């Protein structure tokens, strides 16, 4: 559904089929919709079989990285005698993204089921669902769903009578975007500051509590039951453009647009149609100016680029950006790009964990310069400095928050330079220097 708007006929509601349907939230209602059949089926299979099916389906991580899920699961070595863990990354904090929230609110049992299957497939008896602290309702609904599932024997030492143990625990975060980074999530779960870890070692080797761990996004996990029930080929067939991008994807649309909400379309859907037809185009009396299609960390697109895009991993890359989390932020002609980029920089500066020098200092420095330009106190030299700082912040840190802060600055200056220059004073001296004199 273009939830909260009525579903558009050109959507493909698989994961979002029950958004808005209060009936589907509880265990009984979910079972009526066919829920837990996939888990039943999975528990009767070999874990390796499940991994192969997921591999064949072409499912890729929906959190933002797009890493092939089946391949990620295959990194977990069976029979190594160590406890394996599955972490579900429900920390959804990428600006513009709000799909996992809706999945958990409306179909909590879908996630319980997805986690259970995922855990079983990777040889884990325990799955933790790390939900950001701000998600009050999703937390409530997930906790209730887990309770219901235990009571009905879906989870526990004898999951669905299979003789196998599957435990799922909900873990509440406390306000940190960086905990959406997989190694930071693990640190946070362990009761530490949410600092990302250096890789290697990779989570599949030494992750949560030092044990082999897989971290998957909510949307990724809720796709798995469908793949098991309908088959890998069915999932692969949902691909309109690049064969490397399969299945359906929930795009969270927000900003200056007629019908913001979550839309589920097949990979490769034309972005132009998506924005103007499905989402209703710009608000009355305005025109679109820019789009950030994958959450705040992907390059800003001009409308020219956006309108030529096919909505899949390869398609967005071809048009100068990335699919990322699929959080589509639309910006109209009434907005100031400089102001918004400054605000995004401030976001990253607020969220930096403080480990790496370039991120800790660079995000704050970038914010200060951007805000100075926004307020009319910028100089031409500032643009050079911003780009230089952005270069220093890219490819040099433990995680990519630093790179993410550089992205809107670089793409903004590249594609909307005029707006920056319009705000820059034409004087040659700098205000601070004058104050000192």
């Amino acid at each position, binding site marked *: 559904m273009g939830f909260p708007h009525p579903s558009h006929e050109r959507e493909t509601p698989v994961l979002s089929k029950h958004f808005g349907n209060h009936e589907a939230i509880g265990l009984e209602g979910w079972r009526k919709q066919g829920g837990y059949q996939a888990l039943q089926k999975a528990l009767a299979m070999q874990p390796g079989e499940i991994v192969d099916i997921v591999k064949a389906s072409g499912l890729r991580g929906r959190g933002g990285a797009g890493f092939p899920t089946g391949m990620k699961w295959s990194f977990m070595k069976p029979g190594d005698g160590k406890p394996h863990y599955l972490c579900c990354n429900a920390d959804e904090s990428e600006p513009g993204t709000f799909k996992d929230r809706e999945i958990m609110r409306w179909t909590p049992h879908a996630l319980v089921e997805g986690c259970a299957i995922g855990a079983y497939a990777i040889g884990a008896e325990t799955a933790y669902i790390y939900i950001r602290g701000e998600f009050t309702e999703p937390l409530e609904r997930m906790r209730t769903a887990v309770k219901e599932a235990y009571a009905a024997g879906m989870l526990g030492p004898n999951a669905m009578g299979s003789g196998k143990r599957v435990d799922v625990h909900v873990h509440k975060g406390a306000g*940190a975007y960086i905990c959406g980074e997989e190694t930071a999530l693990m640190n946070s779960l362990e009761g530490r*500051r949410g600092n990302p870890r*250096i890789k290697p070692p990779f989570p599949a080797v030494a992750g949560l509590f030092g044990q082999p761990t897989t971290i998957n996004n909510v949307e990724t996990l809720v796709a798995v039951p469908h793949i098991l029930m309908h088959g890998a080929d069915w999932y692969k067939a949902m691909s309109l453009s690049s064969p490397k991008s399969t299945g359906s994807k929930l795009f969270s649309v927000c900003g200056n647009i007629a019908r913001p909400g979550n839309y589920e379309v097949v990979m490769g859907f034309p972005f132009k149609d998506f924005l103007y037809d499905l989402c209703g185009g710009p608000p009355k009396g305005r025109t679109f100016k820019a789009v950030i299609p994958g959450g705040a960390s992907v390059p800003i697109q001009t409308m020219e680029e956006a309108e030529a895009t096919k909505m899949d991993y390869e398609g967005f890359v071809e048009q100068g950006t990335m699919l990322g989390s699929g959080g589509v932020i639309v910006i109209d002609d009434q907005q100031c790009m400089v102001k918004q980029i400054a605000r995004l920089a401030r976001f990253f*500066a*607020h*969220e*930096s*964990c*403080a*480990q*790496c*020098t*370039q991120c*800790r*200092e*660079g*995000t*704050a*420095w970038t914010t*200060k*310069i951007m805000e*100075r330009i926004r307020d009319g106190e910028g100089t031409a*030299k500032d643009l050079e*400095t911003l780009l*230089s700082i952005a*270069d*220093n912040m890219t*490819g*040099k*840190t*433990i995680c990519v928050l630093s790179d993410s802060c550089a992205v809107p600055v670089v793409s903004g200056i590249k594609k909307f330079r005029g707006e920056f220059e319009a705000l820059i004073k034409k004087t040659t001296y*700098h205000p*601070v*220097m004058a104050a000192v004199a």
Partner: protein
Amino acid sequence: MATTVEPTKAVTQPKMINLTIEGRPVSVPEGMSILEAAKHAGVLIPHYCYHPGLPVAGVCRMCLVEVEKSPKLAPSCATTVAEGQVVHVHSAQSREARKGVLEMLLINHPLDCPICDQSGECELQDYTFQEGRQDSRYEEPKRFNPVEDFGGDVLYVPNRCILCTRCVRFMDDVAHDTVLNVSERGDRAVIGKFEGKDLTHPWAGNVIDLCPVGALLSKDFLNKARSWDVTRTASVCPGCSQGCSMTVETRDNMVVRLRPRPNDSVNEYFMCDHGRLNYRWMNRQDRIEAPMIRRDNALAATDWETAIPAAAQVLKGKRVYVAASPNLSNEALFLLSRLVKLNGGAGGFAVETGPEAPLPGVEDLALRADRAANGKGAELLGFVRGDSSLAGMQNGDVLIVAQDELTMIRDGELARASAVIVIGAVLPEIARHAVVVLPTANCTEEEGTFTNLRGRVQRFMQAKAAPGMARPTWWVLSDLLAALGEKTGYFLPSEAFGALAAAHPHFAGMTYDSLGMRGLPVIQHQLPGVGGTA
């Protein structure tokens, strides 16, 4: 020619990895980091958060190097070597990355060099001078936080902090006392602690050394001396029997600071606060400055040419008892034991003790109960330990008080001696009736060796000049023995040590050269008694 590092434990040969660093081929054991491998290749990769005595953090990003065929720069402290790697430390890319880190570190860093204690020994200064920017592009207001007293000897200046987290990791992983944390996030982050829980751990002072910049400072050393005015000498800490390798720092012939010196076999990189802050006695001014002999019932200053024969006269043919300080060098104790052997008699020592304080993260490292450097040496050289240094004295012995300040003797014991000769740095009040007083250097004013509780013999060098006419202890004793007819003639402490090594199987074969600056363990033998079989 490739530099090869021989693995020290030859039980199972670790696999050796061959790589090239800055054009130099090097072969190192598997599992070593590129940064450590670079050291073996003679290349220093600039870094802040990495320290060989701490777990790897990889946060400062200063050590990023270019590795051929790798898409991104690699943090060399956190990347293990791989066969055939070609690493460039000073390529344009690596240097640009470091320049970027330095610029970022300096944007909020105050221009405190003129008033900062770290100046002259600051790694931020050093690397910025070496390869940082000439100018600053930062034109915004700088972040400000007030100075904080962390307790103990430590002051924290958040404005200068580069968040390398060495201090946090030290307290957590080495001291096992997590009193420091990183507080807040982003550019608001600072090192913090919990109110009421201070840095009073007995080893907390090490965070000051570990801090690469002037963020963690010693209150004791605050504004005392400039790094470039200070002379540094290798030595051994006399605070307890652990025998940590240390550096004595002096200015204008005064000890201004003590710092640990790396020694993998004893103290790794660390030193306890007791040893570190206990240096004021080295500068005490109430020293014996001239040899003295008793004339007309009073001590009168004289010269060495008069005092030595006078002492020999007192000793001739008399049984002698030596009250030795356990802080005397092996050389001095050896010569004293020869005196005891010559005249007949005995020697004893007493050691002040205090509570032991281990550093849990390092094997066999603690502030030891014995608060003296050379109790073990004294034992090995035949002196008997007692609760009083005069316990073994017989009535009528000529008493030689050797560096002992006589703080642990019982009332009336001194009166049993027929005569008292004081050979030391200070004249104890209760020994004012001594007939001869010979002034000596303390352990910062002469060269010698100590033996620590594990039997490790370590050299200490002369850090400053002794006051007045005071002379090294081994020299004074050597002259005294010569005056009594013994063959000595040592012109260097190494010669005295050589004689010691020749006479005592525990020290057999040792020379100053073979000891180097890390020492050697004694050879295990039966412990001899004084005056008995060697």
